[in-house]
């Protein structure tokens, strides 16, 4: 009896463990219908964790190495796609550029036909190939010259918002290119008419503000109205410029410093001269002698 007691006391921990394990197993086998004592399954259950761990470790390394090669491939793929994207972006830019050019050319063709039908004047479309680097509004170089029938003092017009707008005149026609001074140039002046009251005025180039020219001889009683009729057109009095070509809109009136009986005004040009790409030169055959005579009169 003492030996049993001593044994129990000495191994009580192990005995309690076995006792609890047995109770647990009894509970498990009695509570679960799926739990059947199968020694093969028990053996497998002991091996399974090791198998699982080995498999997981092996998979980890295999996946890691695969990931590295995949990463390299992905990087190459990303680079390839980046290049492709760059090319596509360039294509889109080119496409938009082309679209704009087509629109411009269509507008120009429309304008050319309109001029030829309405004014019965022969004209030629030209591309602006150069500008005065110091002042983008001042001087334009066009890609047509005397070879194409362009002569000095021929009027140059542009197209904006569905209307023909005065751009300037040719001052120097070489064989393959011509120099155009715009209406912004201080040496440029043209007879004009205010749409509202048909007052005859003169538009003169000015370097004061880009896109703004001076309107001289504005009647004292003229006020800017809100009815959008403050537009200025060419008068047609000149031998150079046909009438009815839009120049711009009066934005400000102020008293003239030279003449007490007249005011002066600022006119906002209806076309952005810095962005103009194509123009039309009206082939008006101007007689130099007559021009000299007119200039002499105006002086």
């Amino acid at each position, binding site marked *: 009896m003492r030996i049993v007691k001593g044994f129990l006391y000495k191994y009580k921990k192990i005995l309690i463990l076995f006792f609890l394990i047995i109770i647990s197993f009894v509970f498990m086998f009695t509570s679960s219908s799926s739990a059947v004592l199968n020694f093969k399954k028990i053996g497998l259950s*002991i091996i399974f*964790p090791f198998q699982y761990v080995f498999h997981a470790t092996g998979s980890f390394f295999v996946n890691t190495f695969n990931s590295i090669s995949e990463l390299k491939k992905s990087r190459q793929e990303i680079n390839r796609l980046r290049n492709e994207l760059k090319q596509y972006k360039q294509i889109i830019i080119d496409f938009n550029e082309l679209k704009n050019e087509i629109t411009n050319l269509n507008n120009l063709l429309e304008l050319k036909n309109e001029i030829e039908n309405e004014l019965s004047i022969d004209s030629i479309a030209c591309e602006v190939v150069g500008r005065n680097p110091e002042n983008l509004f001042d001087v334009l170089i066009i890609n047509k010259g005397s070879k194409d029938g362009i002569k000095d003092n021929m009027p140059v017009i542009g197209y904006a918002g569905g209307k023909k707008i005065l751009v300037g005149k040719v001052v120097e026609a070489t064989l393959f290119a011509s120099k155009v001074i715009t209406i912004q140039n201080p040496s440029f002046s043209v007879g004009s008419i205010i749409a509202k009251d048909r007052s005859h005025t003169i538009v003169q180039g000015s370097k004061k503000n880009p896109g703004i020219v001076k309107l001289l001889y504005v009647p004292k009683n003229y006020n800017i109205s809100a009815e959008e009729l403050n537009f200025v057109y060419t008068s047609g009095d000149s031998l150079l410029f046909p009438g009815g070509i839009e120049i711009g809109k009066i934005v400000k009136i102020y008293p003239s410093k030279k003449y007490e009986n007249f005011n002066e005004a600022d006119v906002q040009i209806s076309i952005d001269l810095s962005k103009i790409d194509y123009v039309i030169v009206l082939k008006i055959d101007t007689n130099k002698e007559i021009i000299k005579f007119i200039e002499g009169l105006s002086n």
Partner: protein
Amino acid sequence: MIKKILINILIICFLISSILFNFNKFIRINNVLPDFILIFTVLNGIFFGPIYGMIFGFACGLSFEIVSQFPIIGFYALIYTLIGYSTSITRILYVDNAFTATITILLLILLKSFLFLSLGFLFLNIDEISFYFKNIFIIQTIYTVIISIPVFLIYKRFNPKLRKSYNHDV
């Protein structure tokens, strides 16, 4: 002795209720709770001896299975019994501070996962095992290790003498 049993019954009741009832949502991380039963089983084993740990683990596991309607009664009881017994390693690893306690708990979490895998292969289906390892194991391990530090310090504060006597017994 009765006082000790009562305290442990209260701890078990608290553990089971904290695991099973809805108010634990405040302490869930990604729907995972720390393994409180394991923490208390291990700490009981460390402070009061492996026999005590075994019995506590067995009682906790069994209560959990009964209350939670776990399909197999005795599964967690067996796991926590073996974990309670495994606290005998504190003979080798002298657990006197939070760091060593954390290491012990980490080792016993790994043991629990091993037991879960082997016993689970016998009694559970493979989906339950893979769900545990895919969605619960890592978060629960980290969370349990972190939570075990303050619990150990509380245990140590309330049971310094018992710890000492246990060391002498060993």
